[in-house]
């Protein structure tokens, strides 16, 4: 079982977003970075698959040199190999991103490393194009399931489930396949200290793909307009019970 996990480095925004002066990016000067949450689950799932079924795991990202941090985070959790598709800092749209990943997977195949399963996040936390996994699957002519929150492997097949408004739906995929996952697939483990130390020493393989105009061109970012708003402070600690009951009654909840 050989699993490839594709992840993205995104800023760990919290209370608010500040944009750079040219409105081209989020101002990340005071922010940390993380792997997009859906893909953290993809990494965990890949590690569990190999623990259960044996095989090998590789993590891949398209991003700047600094994205090696996220590759090492994935290796600290148990992924064996890492590939950086080194970008020039520009934003790569979904078509450009998918083409670079397809080329990398084809190059892996040519070098005798083929994958039974390629995992993606359903959408990246930041640009959220909702299509890179599907594009890669179609280009490689592989079956593809998206938005998956449960994967079971047996006899060269993956049974996958995704949540709907009213419950679940499931599909069976013959491997090799592409699956895009959502947070909730599993609860990712925390890296161990030895895991971190080992990951630090590991080599990251680098490829420099060619940027291309994929046809979706970012012009500028902007923050949504927030409606004017006032808050009514109802009290402190234990003295607010009666006021809250009044609010519940006013909203006809009691």
């Amino acid at each position: 079982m050989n699993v490839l996990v594709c992840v993205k480095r995104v800023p760990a925004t919290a209370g608010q977003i500040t944009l750079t002066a040219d409105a081209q990016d989020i101002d990340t000067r005071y922010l940390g970075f993380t792997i997009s949450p859906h893909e953290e689950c993809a990494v965990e799932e890949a590690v569990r698959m190999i623990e259960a079924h044996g095989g090998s795991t590789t993590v891949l990202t398209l991003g700047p040199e600094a994205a090696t941090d996220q590759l090492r985070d994935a290796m600290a959790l148990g992924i064996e190999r890492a590939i950086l598709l080194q970008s020039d800092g520009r934003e790569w749209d979904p078509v450009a991103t998918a083409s670079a990943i397809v080329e990398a997977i084809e190059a892996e195949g040519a070098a005798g490393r083929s994958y039974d399963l390629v995992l993606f996040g359903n959408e990246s936390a930041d640009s959220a194009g909702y299509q890179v996994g599907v594009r890669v699957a179609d280009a490689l002519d592989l079956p593809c399931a998206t938005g998956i929150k449960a994967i079971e492997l047996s006899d060269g097949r993956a049974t996958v489930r995704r949540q709907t408004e009213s419950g679940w739906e499931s599909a069976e995929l013959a491997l090799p396949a592409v699956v895009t996952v959502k947070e909730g697939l599993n609860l990712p483990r925390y890296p161990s200290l030895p895991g971190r130390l080992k990951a630090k020493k590991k080599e990251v393989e680098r490829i420099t793909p060619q940027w291309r105009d994929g046809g979706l061109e970012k012009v500028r970012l902007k923050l949504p307009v927030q409606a004017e708003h006032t808050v009514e402070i109802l009290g402190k600690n234990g003295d607010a019970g009666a006021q809250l009951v009044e609010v519940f009654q006013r909203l006809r909840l009691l």
Partner: protein
Amino acid sequence: MVLAFIEHVAGAPTMLSLEVLTMANRLAGEMGTQLEAIAIGPNAAAATGILSSYGVSTLHVADDGRLADYAPAAWAHAIAELVREVDPDVVIGTASDRGGEVMAHVATRMKLPMAANCTEIAPGDPFTVIRQRWGGSLLEEAHLKGTIKLLTLAPHALTAAASPSRTEVTTHAFSPALDDKDFRVRLQPQVEVDTGKISLAQARVVVGGGRGVGSAEGFAALEELAGLLGGAVGCSRAVTSLGWRPHSDQVGQTGTRIAPDLYIACGISGAIQHMVGCRAAKHILAINTDAGAPIVAQADYAVIGDVQKVLAAVNAEVRRVKAGEPSRSPA
């Protein structure tokens, strides 16, 4: 021509599809062209009645029994084939799980770019869209290229509105040349046991807990309040990461979007990824020790204090009122 890809249940378009039709109708008006629709699956043709109130002139129905099940690649094949035949200027679908997935497959088949989760569309050259990033906490203005513009509309970017005048809708059934390969992935609904639990997405009251709840056990007070008010318990990502609650309780960008009458956020700081999950709440009540927490500024009501202390007092008061005793007047 603008082509809208409609999702429906036995011919009744979903709410998100009505929003797509509303936007597509407006867009067709601005572009001085007509609006057509495509629907796939059982009873698709029954949609004409509703579509006539949304300015649709032709409903294309893919006629193949194998399309009754949801098979994303096959559905996309059908749409791509129609697109090649009728050559629309714009194809617009919903940003639901299915809508987004099918449109992505259409995009690869047509070798076209696609813009997901658009909230505004300005046709012309360049063709400009506003689309959501970060679950909607950030917007991007983008130029969408390609001979045919493919896009999905973000949920609730506008309110669905039928037009007062009705159109004559012609039904055009077509049989796409589907490939066995298109059916490699078919999604089958699974019968769920009804647990009787109120779902987070549908609850009128959600009592959400964050790191400030302190522990998994600390959620007992939230469970009690939710029970008293007939609501559901939610939580922040900090809480699911700590393993205190299952991910199915998580509210936010990578969790569930909620739309209750009242959201009671207990010990939650109000990170943007959490707030995008509860921005459809009609009212927010924050309970937090920190009056400066972002959630407090975004709430309608706030109580400054320790979650457990506040909830103990509130739960006692609600129990008293429910038992028919008068509420204690505020001190």
